[in-house]
């Protein structure tokens, strides 16, 4: 028998295939068992008991774009923090250098985070983090007629109606 071995990636592939089969089995069994009697009321979109109005495809608000952009930057910074954390607290390294390793790597990481904090401070000061509030445009009309005239006219009309 030829010697075969599955590497760790093989195990992951088996897991992937197994999970797909498991989910498909569940869905397929449900489809077999359940009744299929659709009517228009059942087919409407669920909206917590309310009647759905209009299309579900609303326009995505671009204000979220800035939030997502800043998030991705700090998420990548976080990803860089993880490997640093694995070497930062190593007991052998700290003992071998008499504590200098701990201080050195800490200061390095502070410089790294400091540069990114400068970027955050810049974005903050520039107002990129403010939530843009919609400014409703109130309709303005400019007429040369003073408001007193309207009051007098309305009073006269009311007097006429009473009479």
């Amino acid at each position: 028998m030829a010697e075969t071995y599955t590497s760790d990636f093989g195990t992951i592939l088996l897991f992937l295939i197994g999970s797909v089969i498991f989910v498909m089995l569940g869905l397929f069994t449900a489809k077999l068992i359940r009744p299929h009697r659709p009517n228009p009321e059942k087919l409407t979109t669920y909206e917590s008991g309310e009647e759905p109005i209009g299309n579900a495809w609303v326009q995505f608000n671009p204000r979220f774009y800035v939030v997502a952009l800043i998030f991705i930057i700090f998420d990548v910074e976080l990803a860089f923090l993880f490997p640093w954390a694995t070497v930062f607290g190593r007991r052998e390294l700290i003992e071998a250098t008499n504590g200098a390793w701990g201080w050195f790597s800490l200061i390095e990481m502070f410089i790294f985070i400091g540069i990114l904090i400068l970027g955050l401070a810049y974005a903050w000061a520039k107002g990129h983090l403010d939530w843009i509030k919609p400014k409703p445009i109130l309709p303005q009309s400019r007429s040369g007629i003073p408001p007193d005239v309207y009051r007098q006219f309305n009073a006269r009309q009311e007097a006429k109606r009473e009479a």
Partner: protein
Amino acid sequence: MTSIILLSIFGIINLFVGFMKSKRILLPLSLLFLAVVFGANLFSWNEAQSYFNHMLTIDNYAVAFTGIMVLATLLLLPFSQHYIEEANENLAEFYSLLLFSLVGAIMMVSYENMLMLFIGIEILSIAMYVLAGSDKRRLRSNEAALKYFLMGAFFTGVLLFGIVLIYGATGSFYLTDIAATAAVNDGTVNAMFTLGLLLLVIGISFKISAAPFHFWAPDVYEGTPTLFTSYMSTVVKIAGVAAFYKLMAAAFAASYAAWFPTLIAITVLTLVVGNIGAVVQTNFKRMLAYSSVSHAGYLLMALVAFNERSDASILFYSLSYALATIVAFAVLQYVSEQRNGDETYAAFNGLGKTNPLLAFAMTVAMCSLSGIPLTAGFFGKLFVFTAVVQDARLMWLVVVAVLMAAVGIYYYFKVVIAMYMQPAADAAKIRIGSFASFMLIFITVFTILLGIAPALVSDLL
């Protein structure tokens, strides 16, 4: 390394100085920063040092090209006058982005590891994508940014694919290791290596706008605001060619037979397309874009020749080309702005009478670009042709290049004719600040000086 660190810190400082109400300090401050970086760079001359486990090496080659790129940025910044005059609120960001982009350019000329080349290209390009689209009101600028970004991202993908294939074939990202593996295997390790090499060549040829990967250049150069076009046309191209030469010389010297045919074809195509394309242009900015494509061809000639004179000739040609291009774009900036945004040759009519200084500077720049003696461009072309002539098989390439240079004289002198022989449509003098005029005179004098005594720069490498 000091130049990289200094430029990054100065870029950040610039961003925060932009919060002040008065923007008048930004230009002198940025010029001061660049001067400090230029000086700090010179300290690394003849003191080669490696950083980050030999990923970045600041040797004489890197110092020389860094110096030229910092000098080019220093010389083109004073022409940002109209941004200062109209109190553009993003002025600090523009200067900072240029400084950050310069960091990427410096990384591109001092790398020893392919990953550093990729990082350098990305830092350089992403800042330029933003600057290309910085004029949000003009549709052309948006078009330029979109085209530059999409095509740049795509070709960076191609470059990465090439790097990955080379890694797969040789097992290392370091240029020296790749060279060792290639030398052991007599030039090409396997088909994966050759394919990776080809993709690398394609990826970098896009960056320097070599044909047939030059199609983005005319639209992007035309749409970008002229100040950033001059940066794109000088620093980005110099960084690309220097990175290309370093790649070929340090990693693929043994594989010469593998990349030589491709690169010769690219060079000839670039020379022909660049020059013939520029002939039919009516827009001066677009003509300069095609001419920069042709200059990439001349630089590639020196690369293809691949002897010990190549790097010195690339260095000198880069400097002469940068000086002339900065002047051309600067004069174009002033003329097109104050003549209703007209960028055709007709905008230059009569400039000889209304602004003799601008016309003279432009004439010297055009002479330098076409290779007329007594200007730096002549010696640039002479050094490149001398380097190519060393190899007897490449004589035909020199013939093609000389023919194309003759074609070049036609379209470079179209604007000279318009300036001196056409009557002015609008007799108003072009307003130009005293500092900008001083810089124009300085660059013109420097060009002529290099045209008389080229040994100042050509003996450096």
